[in-house]
């Protein structure tokens, strides 16, 4: 990137891995990996707080994919300032709608997480444990 003199293995590794890929594709791959990780966590963890964390990871994966789908080639943020005039904006900006949708989704995700955490507090008060193995009534 900035010359071959310095030791920057991270940048080159990332470059090698994503060589020839589109940015949308990179974001989608990372997003799907996060989604699968979150699903794995939700399905295998026994600790309720860890399940909630897994849910948040899944959520971030979905957000990443949505933001990535809004990317246009060499696009910049859809905010007008000295460098982006209204007349030449159309070919240069990324799609503002996915960004707005993700903004909404993040807030809803926070709300859902807060609700889940309060359920976790209630469960802990009732059972004195956060492991789903100790909650016998939920077994079927």
């Amino acid at each position, binding site marked *: 990137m900035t010359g071959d003199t310095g030791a920057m293995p991270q940048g080159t590794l990332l470059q090698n891995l994503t060589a020839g890929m*589109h*940015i*949308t*594709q990179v974001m*989608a*791959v990372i997003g*799907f990996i996060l989604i*699968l990780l979150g*699903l*794995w966590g939700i*399905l*295998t963890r026994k600790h309720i707080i860890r399940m909630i964390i897994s849910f948040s990871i899944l959520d971030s994966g979905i957000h990443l994919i949505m933001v990535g*789908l*809004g*990317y*246009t*080639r060499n696009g910049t*943020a*859809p*905010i*007008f*300032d000295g460098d982006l005039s*209204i007349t030449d*904006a*159309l*070919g240069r*900006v*990324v*799609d*503002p*709608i996915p*960004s*707005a949708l993700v*903004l*909404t989704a*993040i*807030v*809803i995700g*926070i*709300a*859902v997480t*807060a*609700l889940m*955490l*309060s*359920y976790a*507090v*209630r469960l802990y*008060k*009732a*059972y*004195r444990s956060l492991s789903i193995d100790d909650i016998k009534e939920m077994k079927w």
Partner: protein
Amino acid sequence: MIQRMLIILVLILMGFGIIPLVWGLQDAETVSPVSQYYVSQGADDLGAANLVTAVVVSYRGLDTLGEVAVLFTATAGAAMLLGLGADNSKRKQQHQQASEKPGNHMAESEAQPKKQERREGSELLKTGAAFLFPLLLVFGVYIFIHGHLTPGGGFQGGVVIASGLVLLLLSESDRPMRKTLLHSIESLSGAAYAAVGLMGLWLAAGFLDPRFLPAGQFGSLFSAGAIPVIYSLIGLKVGSELTGVIDSLRRRSS
């Protein structure tokens, strides 16, 4: 064990199902047709330099009102869930009646002696929180006032304000929260948001139309009609709501 293998198998299958979705994915050359209108006409329409804000507050303003309603519902749900437990245990203590679940009752009685004093925040945390809180407050207000000009907006600014308050709560765990103030800020800003929307219906083209205030100089602080007003109200509402959630979690978990 077999269950875990099954889960891993399902996830691997899902991964293989996803590959064709990702394979041919390419960067878009242009934005979608709806966005083309927003990008080319949005600045003339609304006078907001930040198009994402224009979409969130004005073009999809009704969605944002719904989003704020969802946030309010979740906050109310959390407060109800956590407050309900307090009421129940109080009633149980008053009447000394056997609870319907023996395990539950045992847990309650077991909880009483275990209640310990929470550790005080360290000197570092206290000093840092006292130093950072005013800065975070001002920064949050800055973010939501400039939501139509720079990245950020009401939700982000509100979260920054709430994080400052959380820092205060962490440093002094038994600091009493002025809940009346918090609730009145929350409900007044929510009501004012709806009122601004109705004024758009009355004075401009439709519900949540921000153009009933003068558009002003493009790119200046007082521009874009009512968008900064709406975003400031959202910022106040989100900040007080999230602080309320953290406060109720803190009170009940002790």
